[in-house]
């Protein structure tokens, strides 16, 4: 079924069919500890489910190592996730053969962080943009030439000025435009943007983000938009997924979630953004979330956030919270979400400790306490 057929079918039945449906995705990587001592498994993505609709942007935020890139790669099946369901335009990608996968990948394109690294340095811009067309056997030489010019125009690069250049003759933002022109060349339905503007300066970043928005409006594109910057993710997304240590902590409408985060981690993330009001000039001083993210090889029992969560109770260590819908379209995985007032929480039992396990005793402390404190 083509995207158009699918959409009209969906419209006729009155129900919206998602463009992409991901269910219970799991991706794990075996790792060997140094010296062959004790290996383990990195739980990079654990049981993640979400939908993306046509023309919609799903933003993904989370700390480094939380599994955002692994999730994106699981969607495009590079590599195939360990288990779960990925349905794209009605095709079950987990079961798809090579030919079906090639056709689906044409409809979902990736844009990566490093604009230089993703382009062959010896090719000219025109060749770089033409390549996906050639690869999928589209048109003849002259129709492709016209299409390349169209695409360069679309991404704001004057063909007469840029078509003959090579990547090293372009700025970072211009390289990223070339990468985007390549990504939209085959008229995909979905663009997976993994930190696609993170390496760009803020003025250039704004240009590229506006280009994404223009393409979304003109081509009805959907995006899976991954970034560290929560404020940026909010401004480009309809819905936002917050990841913590391989799991979804919260997923919901961008506006609603930022106005009222339900998960303590989302709230902590929001509090840690340094920001300045562009009108009054007032600054918001971040509040730091204490602690370090635990190891994805040995995640905490129960809720993976409990070692840093200010609301943690005993239950959080014993039972993993499931993702439940608390507000329309807004799901959270937390036993004591933030719309429950503090007073309603069960009292913390005396002596209960939810802190990370104590650090193993150090057999050889390097030195005695210093004689004097100079600092």
């Amino acid at each position: 079924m083509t995207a158009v057929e699918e959409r009209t079918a969906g419209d006729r039945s009155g129900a919206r069919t998602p463009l992409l449906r991901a269910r219970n995705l799991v991706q794990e990587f075996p790792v060997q500890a140094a010296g062959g001592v004790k290996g383990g498994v990195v739980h990079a993505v654990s049981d993640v489910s979400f939908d993306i609709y046509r023309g919609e942007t799903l933003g993904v935020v989370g700390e480094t190592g939380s599994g955002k890139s692994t999730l994106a790669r699981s969607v495009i099946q590079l590599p195939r996730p360990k288990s779960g369901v990925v349905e794209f335009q009605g095709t079950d990608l987990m079961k798809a053969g090579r030919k079906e996968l090639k056709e689906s990948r044409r409809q979902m394109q990736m844009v990566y962080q490093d604009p230089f690294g993703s382009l062959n340095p010896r090719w000219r811009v025109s060749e770089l943009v033409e390549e996906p067309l050639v690869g999928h056997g589209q048109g003849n030489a002259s129709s492709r030439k016209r299409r390349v010019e169209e695409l360069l125009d679309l991404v704001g690069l004057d063909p007469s000025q840029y078509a003959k250049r090579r990547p090293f003759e372009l700025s970072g933002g211009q390289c990223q435009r070339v990468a985007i022109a390549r990504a939209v060349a085959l008229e995909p339905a979905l663009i997976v943007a993994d930190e696609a503007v993170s390496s760009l300066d803020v003025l250039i970043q704004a240009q590229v983000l506006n280009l994404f928005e223009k393409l979304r409006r003109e081509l009805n594109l959907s995006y899976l938009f991954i970034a560290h910057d929560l404020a940026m993710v909010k401004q480009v997304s309809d819905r936002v997924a917050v990841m913590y240590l391989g799991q979804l902590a919260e997923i919901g409408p961008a506006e609603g979630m930022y106005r009222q985060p339900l998960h303590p981690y989302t709230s902590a993330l929001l509090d840690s953004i340094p920001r300045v009001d562009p009108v009054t000039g007032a600054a918001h001083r971040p509040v730091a979330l204490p602690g370090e993210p635990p190891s994805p090889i040995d995640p905490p029992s129960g809720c993976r956030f409990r070692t840093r969560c200010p609301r943690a109770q005993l239950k959080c260590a014993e039972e993993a919270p499931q993702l439940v819908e608390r507000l329309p379209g807004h799901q959270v995985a937390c036993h004591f979400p933030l719309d429950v007032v503090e007073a309603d929480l069960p009292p913390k039992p005396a002596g209960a400790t939810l802190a990370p396990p104590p650090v193993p005793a150090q057999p050889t402390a390097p030195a005695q306490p210093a004689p004097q404190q100079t600092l």
Partner: protein
Amino acid sequence: MSSKRTAAFPAEDATVSEGVIVPETAGRHRPATAASPGEPLLVVEDLRVQFTRGGRKINAVNGLSYELAPGSMLAIIGESGSGKSVSSRALMGLLPPTAKISGSVRFDGRDLLGLSEREMQSLRGGDIAMVFQDPARSLNPTMKIGAQITEAVRLHSDLDKKGAQARAVELLKLVRLPAAERRFHEYPHQLSGGMRQRVMIAIALAGEPRLLIADEATTALDVTTQAQIMELLVELQQRLGMAVIMISHDLGLAASYAQDVVVMYAGRAVEYAPTKVLFANVRMPYTHALLGAIPALDREPHSLFEVTPGQPPDLSALPKGCPFRPRCSNATDQCLEMPPFTEHDPEHWFACWHPVGSGTGKHTANGEQR
């Protein structure tokens, strides 16, 4: 910063000649004695740095001026390539000998640009220390972190090995490295990015610096870790009375922590004021453009960003006059002449002929758009 100075910094490109230039305006400078109370710790005036590469002159820093009071925090912000790192390396004496440096840098009354490499070495890591963006590359991967800090301590003190080790552990605790005693025996790769940055700060503190330069020290870190490290820097600044220069491209970060902010564009200081003054009343169109381009939590999903066209200029072929002119919506023919960097309002310096809100320039509505 001071509003005492009345003279504007030189507006025209002073010709940069070989080596260090004794400023003609030396009379304005403080005497070469230890800074007395109320005196700035660091005074940078009209700093210029030029590189030559393949016969091309690269004008990396083209007139940078600021002051830093003891124990205060100054942010230097600007886009990639605006000269933030080069200018800071210049005052640390860390540029290659081929770099042509002019202007004046006075630290505690001493002219840093006139110091011998030897004198500079004793200052580096001592009175002035620096922390960089990439702790993984600054640390020795084959050496336990404890040994690396101990080495730094011994370099700057007469402590014996044992005493230095004790001091190193103390420093790790000071920077709040979790489980400092255990981490002492670990290698850099066993630490998270945030923990490695804490170790770098501990090494920087080994010489009890009076000035710490943090060059994008939190850029590679997550927001949550960034907030922890910034909190640590502020705590150290206050507890140790240490002055901090934080180099960043993040306006929000600068606004949240620094007392004063310098905005750089194409190697020039273009706006400089106490943080509150600056962000309450941005005058330079470039700073204004930066503010409009940063994503903000209170903007609607799918709202467009205010766009500034073009690219930062080529430092080998700077445009005539104001470097921001090719991208500036306020630009007029007057801007073909370099605007002087002047204290227009009390404590508020900027370089612009048609500042935001002045009602002059091409698009006079610019200031009222928001």
